[in-house]
Structure formats: C-alpha cells, structure tokens
C-alpha cells in the first residue's frame, strides 16, 4: 500500500434494523503500529472490526486492508489478516497443538508445514508444555495466547484484536500485552479495540475514539490528553474549614481558576510548571497550618478524555447525556 496505511476506511455505514451501528466511520491505520479503537459498549467498535475482517459486509462506504478491498477482494484479504475475537475462538476439545495444526491446514499450509508451524508458535507463545493438553483445561491467559497464536499462523500483515484482555486477570493481561508488543516488533500492524483505557494508553501509538457509530477523535494518547488540558494539581483538605486556604494557595500557581469539589473536599486546577506548583502549594499550606489529606499532581487519564469527548463514561451504553457531537468535533485537531 503506497501511502503507508495498513487499514483505511471511508464513510463506513452499517444498519441493523433502523439503528445505525456505524454511521460514516473513517479510519486510517499506519503500517507497523498499534492503533487503538476506543468507545463505550454499542459505539460500533465490534461492527467496525467485523467489517474490516470480512465477516460482515458494510451497507455503505468502503474499506481497504493491506491495500485490498474488503468486500470485492475478501478472499485475498483473509490470507493477510488475523482475527482474535472477544471469545477465545479456539476449539476447546482439541489440544493446543491440534488447534494450531488444524488452523494451519485450513490456511492451506499442508500437513507437514502446519505441524512445524504449530511447534514454532507453541514455543513462541510459551505453550510448549501445555501443547498436548485439551484447551478446556487452559487458563484464561493461556487460551488467549493460543488464540493469538492461531491468528499468527500466516504471519498476517494486519492483526485485529477485539477486546483481547476482557475478563482476564492482571497477570494474564500483562502476558497478552507482551505478546502483542512482540508481534508489532516483528512488523505486524495491530488494530486493537478495547474498553480498557489503560490498555490503549499502554499499547497504542494512536487512538481513534468511536461514539454512536462515528470517529469523534483521532490522535496520539498524549494528544488526546492535551485536549482535556495538561497536568493538574490536586489538594484534598482534611476538613471543610481548610478549603478557602487551599483555594488561595492553588490559585497562586495555577493557570485559570481552581475548581472545588465540596463533597470530596478537593481543590484542583491545571498547572504548567509542575514541580514549582507542587512545592509552592505544599509550603503555603504548611505555613498556613492547613491540614491536608492528600496533595499531588495528576495527569489526565483517558477516562477524562472519554468523559470530555462523549459526555459519558466508558461504562455507558451510548444513551447517556451526550454532549453535542458537532461542538465536540471542533475540539478535535484535524
């Protein structure tokens, strides 16, 4: 693909009944990167991945994967992609090795190459010892790694990871992340959908935020965070009486007016010179004899970004009190 994009979608539309699952969705993923697709439940993430991986046909718009049209050249696309779904789509009755050999043969490697490829992939995903056990006895993390291995049989140029760590414990999640990083290092482009902002932040070099079937932001994780503002200083007073003094101290170092959360006894405000702000506020509070529960600097999380862009949190189903989409779109750099 001449322009360096492994995935490109323009104006994708998909309707179910009267409802738009995708409503003019655009996406461009650069080759050799991890690109995050982030959005609340029902935002259209899974629909987008299912179209790009040729499982369903769009009602409108067009998409290319590895330079090939996903509807007209579906078969060619399939030889160049890997898909790891929300479910570990491996056979639970077969052993890990039998799974990989079966998928290898179905990728038309032939019996001998399928067998040796299975051996390689089991070793690479640290499953050699478990290779001859039934997958039904695997842990969640092992199953997900086998699922990844099955997606890697043809060394695909594009790998779709649809919520790869949903339901995994933190340790298994870390294992999957390590595997993904290794794949990207070997040249694979990854499109990652997730509800875990932390996951997108850790893995993705660029993130598209999806809401109600449209891309409402597309930037680097840091770029998105800058949209919400940079670092903030945060002071939690020990008692209500300390709040006015805390506001006073914070106001002296921050840009703009401090915000006060009376309920949580919290005073916070954006700052530019982080270290100076922290030391000055701390000294002012100490000199003034204000009892403080907590004081610190906070970088905005992608949760903040999400709340700001969509008007609802990550757990919302898309029916929350959404901010005006047109207004939000203008906040997004082109």
């Amino acid at each position, binding site marked *: 693909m001449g322009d360096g994009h492994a995935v490109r979608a323009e104006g994708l539309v998909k309707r179910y009944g009267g409802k738009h699952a995708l409503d003019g969705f655009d996406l461009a993923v650069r080759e050799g990167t991890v690109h995050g697709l982030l959005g609340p439940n029902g935002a259209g993430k899974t629909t987008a991945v299912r179209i790009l*991986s*040729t*499982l*369903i*046909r769009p009602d409108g718009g067009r998409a290319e994967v590895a330079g090939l049209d996903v509807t007209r050249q579906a*078969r*060619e696309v*399939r*030889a160049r*992609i890997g*898909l790891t*779904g*929300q*479910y*570990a*789509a*491996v*056979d*639970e*009755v*077969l*052993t890990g090795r*039998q799974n990989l050999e*079966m*998928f290898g*043969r*179905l*990728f*038309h*490697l*032939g019996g001998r*190459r399928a067998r*040796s*490829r299975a051996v*390689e992939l089991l070793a*690479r995903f640290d499953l050699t010892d478990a290779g001859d056990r*039934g997958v039904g006895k695997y842990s969640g993390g092992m199953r997900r790694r086998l699922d990844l291995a*099955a997606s890697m*049989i*043809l*060394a695909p140029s594009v790998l779709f990871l649809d919520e790869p760590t949903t339901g995994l414990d933190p340790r298994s999640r870390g294992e999957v992340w390590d595997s993904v990083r290794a794949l990207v290092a*070997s040249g694979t482009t990854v499109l990652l959908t997730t509800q875990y902002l932390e996951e997108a932040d850790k893995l993705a070099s660029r993130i598209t935020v999806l809401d109600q079937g449209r891309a409402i932001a597309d930037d680097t994780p840091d770029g998105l965070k800058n949209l919400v503002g940079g670092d903030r200083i945060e002071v939690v007073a020990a008692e209500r009486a300390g709040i006015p003094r805390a506001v006073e101290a914070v106001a002296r170092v921050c840009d703009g007016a401090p915000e006060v959360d009376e309920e949580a006894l919290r005073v916070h405000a954006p700052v530019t010179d982080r270290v100076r702000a922290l030391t000055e506020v701390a000294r002012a509070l100490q000199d003034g004899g204000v009892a403080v529960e907590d004081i610190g600097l906070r970088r905005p999380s992608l949760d903040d970004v999400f709340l700001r862009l969509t008007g609802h949190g990550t757990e919302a189903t898309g029916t929350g009190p959404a901010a005006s989409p047109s207004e939000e779109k203008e906040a997004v750099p082109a």
Partner: protein
Amino acid sequence: MSTLDLATPPREHGRLYWLLADCANIVRRGLTHYQRQPVNIAWQLGFPILSVLLYGYVFGSAMTVPGGGDYKDFLMPGMFTMTMAFGFINTATLVVHDSTKGVIDRFRSMPMTSSAVVAGRGVTDLVVACAELTILMLTALAMGWRPDGGWGFLAAFGLLLWLRFALIWLGVWLGLLVPNPEAAGGLFAVAFPLTMISSIFVAPQLMPDWLGWVAAWNPISSTAAAARDLFGTPVGGGDSWVEQHALLMSCTWPLALTLLFLPLAVRRFQRLSK
C-alpha cells in the same frame, strides 16, 4: 521470526480441490472430538440402548405386533430409525456451540472455503451415524435380532443414513437459529413426542384412528417400515396407502426434508455476513 516461507501459501489448486481439502480437515476435527471424548458417543447411544432394553425386555412381553411376528423384529429397525431422527439435535448442538463460541467466525475470517464448514459438519455426522448404527445393530444381534443379510441389509442401512442426511440440514438450520447451546438442548423435548407418535414402538393400527393416521404419515414411520421390509422381517405393516408404499415414502420424505431445509440452512449461513 519464522523458519518457514509463509509469504506465499500454496494456491496452485482449483476451488474444488480446496473445498474437498477444507471439508476433509473439518471432518478430521469433528472425528478428533469423538476420539478425545469417546464418552460422547455413549451419551448419544444411551437413550436408544436403554429404550431397546426397556421395550425389548420390560414391555416386550406385553407388546403385540398386529398380524403376528416377533416384537424384536418390529422394535429394532424402529430404534435405528429413532437414533437417526434424534441426530438432528446433535448436529444443532454442535453448530450452535461453534457459532456462539466464535469458532465459525474464525473459520470465516480465514482464506478457506467457508461452505466447507457446513459440508464438513454433515460428513462428520454421517460418519458418526455409521458408527452409531453399527453399535446399535451389534446390541440388537446380541439380544436375538436376526435380520436377513445381503443387499436388503445394505439398502436398509442406506435408507437410515438417507434420513440422517436429510435431518443434518434441519440441525444446521436450527443450530444457526437458536441463541445458545441450552436452547438446543431443549429441542429434545420437541423431538421426543414427534418420534413417539410414529411406528417406532407401536404399530399405528393399535392407536386411535386420528392418531394412527398421524403416526402412519410421520416421515420416520416410513423409514422404519421400509427398513423392516429390507431386513427381511416385514412385521406390523398397515393397510393404508402410506404404509403400503413405505419404500417409496422412505425415499421421498427425506428428499422433501432436504429440499426444504438445505436452502434454509444455506441462507441462514449466508446471513452470517449480513
């Protein structure tokens, strides 16, 4: 990262070759399941074998066959037919499992021939049906069932498989239709009365008129009656047209079922990409 040349998967064969090769690999997977969980065959045969024992030994002495004859000669072919008929539940359960777990999606995202997923399921189920019939027939022989050998026997075997073949498509269709494996389990409750109102256990003449008529026209009654004839033990046949033409109807019914459910199953499968 790889010692293999994966850049150019072999594509020098035609579409038919890959359809057959992919189908063979799906069959291999299906049979490996039974190899790894042989107890599944026992579960599937548990009900028919228990029925054979119950009806053969417990109720057998109280059972009469209209026109005379050994009840075993009546019962055994009926039991083979019932096992073939229940097979669609098995097909549906396996299909719904694959579709809800995402295995069918993975197959569809691969460069294999996607129709091989369904074709392979069908061939696997027919191979398993052969094994089931063999086990049931050996059980029947041990209990004193004595059919004629030869071509008639093979023809009866073929007719039983023909019924199973037709019901594969019903099973695939239902498997893609029902939402979860639990719902597929509920199919048994529907299938059970449908197989009882037939000539499997009791001759339709012995039932009330209207029920006997329904039982005689039940597709599986025709297969059971035709199998009894072909096994050389034509007992319990009735006088109605459909019972007199059991062989014809045992060929026609499955054909009609196939013509109905094969297109439905194919359409349902194609709708997965909608």
